[in-house]
């Protein structure tokens, strides 16, 4: 049954290919969505079965066949459902299905409707293979597959040169990551003689000494792979450009699922990472740096999808540093809630873009709240959720990460995370106010076509909004009767669920590796993180929530003058907070992104091209030259042996 979960979308791909245009649009949509929905149902049934088993025995394995066997080295095409992959598979199929449904409406007028769903189903197959894999090789199949689909989908609108460029950039950066993954995989194989998770993780403590070069190298190589896939420093630049793809793709691949593969991989290999303290510390530092850094950039963007893209990079940073401080469960928790609200944000943004006939510049939006009531409602929910206001989903997971960082003594990381939280709230509400509030800055053309999205697009939004509200409750200890409204004692439901994978680590919700916090500290931390979010929202509100009409201006111009300049406090805030932050974001974005990072990528390309050109010089086409080189080769070989 397990194998059917990835197989169904693949079957849909095959049917789509074979039947082709005979399917018609309706048929295509039904096939694509139906396959993913069936996968979701199967996944849910499997997880229910899994839950019925005793906690220690919660693994289901499906050996499909032996892929290759050489002596005692054996690789099966095999799938594994354990608590960790169960969370992933539910998120992927569930959110994936909603996004498929939404795409039916969003892509309704696109000429390449069938091709789109072909790629999308192929992606689902690859992603499900990745998360359900039982060994590194099968995971790598999924890993490459999602990369390929991502590349195809970024460049989906291939008549746009920018789309083709963005696809290429994603590809180049991801190849660097893949190199790391392969290297890590081969290192593990060299030491443990296997690629099966169970065997590798069982053998690792025996063959590796904690903290030695070998395990550090292996985990750092894997981390390089993870940073490529999950868009972390230094390999994050491809993700914002990937927004060239259709918006449902951004939601599915570049927010909810594929980009979290790196986090999943690190969590999957938590045994290896905890054996390499340096690597784990690197994960934490990279994650925290990315979380803060990307958030500052998000502040300075005007393209609605780019804001969300940098936000995704930043939120993925939170997941990484959760893993880095040892709170793998919290990282997976945030991965899940993030999938809900970030998919919602992208789909909501897509709904706005759809309504405005393709406009993505927030400076040309404004005042859409009343015109797009459903979209506005769900976007507000998503913004609150990502900002971290209780009791929305983002609050629970982010708070768990931050308190884990604090509890494990990573104070620097904690401060970075807290600042990032302020910025997150700020840029999300900046987006909200610019888009939905204030006066309309729509072009005449856009105004004319303005319409709320069809039901097939709104329905998934509402479901995701509901999940963004209640999704965090799995972080509550409600099975214990909800004695206290914290993640403090008894273990949160999700943590307990994941405990067989990450190990039983006492009562603290955050993680086994994280020491306990006192009750007061825990509450204080909650208060601090809520205050941070509220502060960010307030700042955004002051800066961007302008009323559309100005009735006061006529009645009391002097008061209005003061109000217009908002007691000049805005300017003060602007000078001491908003402008520096924006300027910093701008500088970082322009300088770092374009000059340093892109420059390096171009530089590498240049050196390779140069080398290739040099080698071409030798390829003169003259047979004499070739014979000369042949002879020189022979001479060199012989000289090497006779002279030494």
């Amino acid at each position, binding site marked *: 049954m397990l194998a059917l979960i990835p197989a169904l979308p693949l079957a849909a791909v095959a049917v789509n290919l074979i039947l082709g245009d005979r399917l018609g649009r309706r048929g295509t949509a039904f096939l694509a969505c139906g396959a993913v929905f069936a996968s979701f149902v199967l996944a849910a049934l499997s997880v229910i079965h899994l839950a019925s088993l005793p906690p220690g025995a919660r693994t289901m394995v499906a050996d499909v066949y032996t892929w290759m066997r050489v002596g005692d080295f054996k690789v099966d095409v095999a799938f594994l459902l354990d608590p960790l992959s169960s969370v992933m598979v539910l998120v992927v199929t569930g959110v994936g299905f909603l996004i498929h449904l939404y795409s039916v409406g969003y892509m309704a007028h696109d000429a390449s409707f069938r091709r789109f769903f072909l790629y999308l189903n192929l992606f689902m197959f690859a992603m499900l293979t990745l998360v359900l894999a039982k060994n590194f090789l099968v995971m790598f199949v999924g890993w490459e597959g999602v990369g390929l689909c991502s590349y195809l989908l970024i460049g989906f609108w291939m008549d746009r040169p920018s789309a083709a460029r963005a696809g290429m950039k994603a590809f180049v950066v991801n190849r660097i990551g893949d190199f790391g993954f392969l290297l890590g995989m081969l290192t593990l194989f060299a030491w443990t003689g296997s690629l099966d998770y169970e065997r590798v993780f069982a053998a690792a403590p025996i063959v590796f000494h904690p903290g030695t070069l070998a395990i550090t190298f292996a985990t750092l190589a894997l981390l390089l792979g993870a940073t490529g896939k999950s868009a972390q420093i230094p390999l994050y630049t491809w993700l914002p450009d990937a927004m060239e793809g259709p918006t449902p793709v951004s939601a599915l691949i570049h927010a909810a699922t594929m980009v979290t593969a790196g986090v999943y991989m690190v969590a999957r290999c938590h045994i290896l990472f905890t054996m390499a303290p340096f690597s784990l510390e690197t994960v934490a530092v990279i994650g925290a740096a990315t979380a803060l850094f990307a958030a500052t950039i998000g502040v300075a963007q005007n393209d609605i999808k780019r804001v969300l893209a940098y936000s995704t990079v930043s939120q993925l940073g939170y997941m990484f540093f959760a893993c880095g401080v040892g709170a793998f469960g919290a990282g997976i928790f945030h991965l899940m809630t993030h999938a809900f609200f970030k998919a919602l944000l992208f789909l909501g943004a897509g709904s706005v873009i759809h309504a405005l006939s393709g406009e993505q510049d927030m400076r040309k939006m404004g005042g859409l709240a009343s015109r797009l009531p459903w979209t506005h409602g769900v976007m507000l929910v998503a913004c609150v959720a990502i900002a971290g206001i209780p009791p929305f989903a983002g609050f629970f997971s982010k708070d768990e990460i931050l308190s884990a960082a604090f509890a494990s003594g990573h104070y620097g990381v904690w401060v970075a995370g807290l600042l990032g939280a302020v910025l997150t709230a700020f840029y999300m509400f900046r987006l909200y106010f610019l888009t939905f509030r204030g006066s309309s800055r729509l072009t005449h053309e856009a105004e004319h076509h303005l319409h709320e999205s069809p039901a097939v697009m709104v329905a998934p939004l509402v479901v995701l909004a509901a999940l963004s509200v209640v999704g965090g409750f799995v972080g509550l200890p409600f099975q214990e009767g909800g004695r206290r409204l914290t993640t403090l004692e008894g273990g949160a439901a999700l943590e307990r669920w994941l405990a067989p994978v990450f190990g039983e680590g006492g009562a603290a919700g955050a993680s086994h590796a994280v020491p306990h916090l006192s009750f007061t500290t825990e509450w204080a931390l909650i208060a601090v993180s809520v205050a941070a979010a509220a502060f960010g929202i307030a700042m955004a509100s002051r800066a961007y929530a302008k009323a559309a009409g100005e009735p006061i201006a006529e009645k009391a111009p002097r008061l209005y003058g003061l109000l217009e300049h908002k007691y000049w406090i805005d300017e003060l805030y602007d000078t001491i907070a908003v402008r520096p932050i924006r300027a910093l974001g701008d500088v970082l974005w322009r300088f770092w992104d374009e000059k340093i990072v892109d420059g390096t990528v171009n530089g590498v390309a240049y050196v390779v091209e140069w080398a290739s050109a040099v080698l071409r010089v030798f390829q003169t086409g003259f047979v004499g030259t070739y014979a000369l080189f042949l002879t*020189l*080769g022979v001479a060199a070989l012989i000289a090497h042996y006779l002279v030494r």
Partner: protein
Amino acid sequence: MMPFTMPSLIAVDWWALGAVIALSVGAMLLLVLEFVPAPPASNRGAFVTLLALLAAAGSVLEVRDARRSLFDGMFLHDGFTVFFTVLFCVIGAVAVLQSWDYVKRTRINHGEYYALLLSSTLGMVLMAASNDLITIFLGLELMSLALYVLVGFRRTRLDSSEAAMKYFLLGAFASGFLLYGIALLYGATGTTNLAKVAMFLADSPMIGNPMLIVGGLLLLVGFGFKVAAVPFHMWTPDAYEGAPTTVTGYMSAGAKAAGFAALLRVLLVAFPPLMSEWRPILSWIAALTMTVGNVTALLQTNVKRMLAYSSIAHAGYLLVAVVAGGLDGGSAALFYLAVYSFMNLGAFGVLALLGRGAEERVTIKDLAGLGFRSPMLGLAMTVFMLSLGGVPPTSGFMGKVYLFSVAVKAGLIPLVIVGVLNSVVSVFYYLRVTVAMYMQEPGAEPVEIAWAPSAAIAVVITLALTLWWGVQAQDLLTTAQRSILGLL
């Protein structure tokens, strides 16, 4: 020397020799048939060739589990021979299917074409089956001479003749080195039989004897030339580009596999005692070959030429398996050769379909928009490119996984890092083909696709094998392991 005695052959031996006999008879029959007039559109040659190839493969498969040493130990029938004989015959058969229409379209439909194809296949079989340096050389020359002519078969085209000339001159040069190497080895050991060389070296290790070392190195040069290893690779791009596309596909698969078959037999049977001598040098050659091949391929605009450099790079990967040596390295090499042969044949088979009449349209630009104009062809080419680049779930990926895992086990970590880095880089140029097919508009004059049933069958066969061995590698793997077992 022992006096020559007429070999007494039993039934098994006749089956074992069936391949050689069928291929020789087929080639001669084709030449004789040339005197019987036939209409220009006749498929006579292709039919006879296919039959000969099928008979050859069927014959050795009939006695695949037997192990016979014939003609004074010069000709060995073992798993290794069977593996390569079948591989060469299938490569030949696919090449025939690809040529079926191609030779008529490009007006090179002469009986000699197929006769030469069979002769070179015969040479390859001899190279794989020989247990003696002299017969290896015979097989190599038989294969090469036929290929020289085939490369220049488009007589009216200057580039074809030029390519044949270069290939011939340099090939003769390399053969000279090879023969001289054999002579020196004979001088040092007193025999050309591989098993006897091994016994001689085991009894009195003469490590450091210049005659032996130089002889061995020259042997390496000769084989290095045939498999297109750096720095003996320079003929490859010119020959591949100038040859008729179907011939390019055939030689890129068959000649390389034959070169490696001989190299493997020589190194694994005769020279294990000298392993510490040839291992470092082959490691360097492998690293260089991979790197030069891939880096140069990056900038090519002619796909045939690009695939020529790619085939150089693949020789580098294969050398990694050879360096790893032993049972594992040998079977990894066999596995990779089978996988490589069909994905490469497939790619050239697609290229052979492009263009009207004798024109050749094989630049990246010509491929623009092909994915939409012919979805099937586009899909096939994409799979071949992904497989050559080692992307799962294709056979090329399994080949690399197996090969690199074997190399890791043999402790060749630096070589593996170079290899993995190379395969990461290589995807760039393979993907350029896919990008052109799916993401670019065709130019002013879209390339014509010359579909033909036989060529379509060839595409399907190569595509199916490339996908199948990616999804289910175990059968081929077991076969490769069993085939190498008899050798050691």
